[in-house]
């Protein structure tokens, strides 16, 4: 017997909520980014769990692989966003000498 679908969804929801707590409560900008990455991972688990458990018609319909393709694109976008986000954090650190996000609250120095 398979692992039922609801188990995967519960674990993904738990990961999402832990990532949400991390994104809302960390002072360090990199900590916030790590929370965001956790949330993106949980979304991916959801996508693949639904892809696996929902019956699709045949292999030739475009929707047959949409779960996997969607997950690949989410991973791609997460990589791009992590790169740009970390570049921003490094640039802010060079200018303001701080990475605590509550200190970066004015547009001008």
């Amino acid at each position, binding site marked *: 017997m398979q692992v039922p679908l609801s188990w995967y969804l519960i674990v993904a929801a738990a990961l999402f909520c*832990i990532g949400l707590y991390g994104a809302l409560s960390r002072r360090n900008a990199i900590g916030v980014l790590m929370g965001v990455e956790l949330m993106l991972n949980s979304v991916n688990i959801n996508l693949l769990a639904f892809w696996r458990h929902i019956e699709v018609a045949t292999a030739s319909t475009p929707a047959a692989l949409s779960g*996997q*393709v969607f997950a690949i694109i989410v991973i791609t976008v997460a990589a*791009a966003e992590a*790169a740009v986000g970390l570049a921003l954090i*490094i640039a802010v650190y060079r200018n303001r000498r701080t990475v605590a996000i509550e200190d970066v609250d004015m547009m001008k120095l």
Partner: protein
Amino acid sequence: MSIPQVTVSHVVFVILSAIALIGALGVVTTRNLFRAALFLVLSFIGVAGFYILLEAEFLAMVQILVYVGAIAILIIFAIMLSQRLMAPGYKASNEQWLWALVAAVALFAALAFILLNVGWPTAEASVPQGTVAELGKALVDPDQYLLVFEVASVLLLAALVGAVVIARER
């Protein structure tokens, strides 16, 4: 309701979810940022295990290659380059951590309630269509996902150029 038979996949699922959730909890609670990055790597590996259990092994390898091999290293480098000002006496959580905790727990309760009470279409999962060859063909087929593929590559190029320009030393 009959007690479901416990198979190896159930045991493996429990172990993997323990790994992923312990990693995630470690990320958001530990004060040392480098250890938080290592817990994040643990969580990523747990999630890759989930993908293998869901019979999407190409995704699992891509997850390890991209997340563990690239994003985690990026995060660790960023931590090393900006570490000096986070002294040990610094608090890791800001002053609204309690409200964030309440929000996260409330959201989890709501989601769990919904997820357990919806009758999911319990299709006995068919053999998943898609070997890696099918996936490759789907990504470059004009009738399927070619546009998505091209847009994603342009996005990656823009992110690459942008990251290099933003983080450049003047």
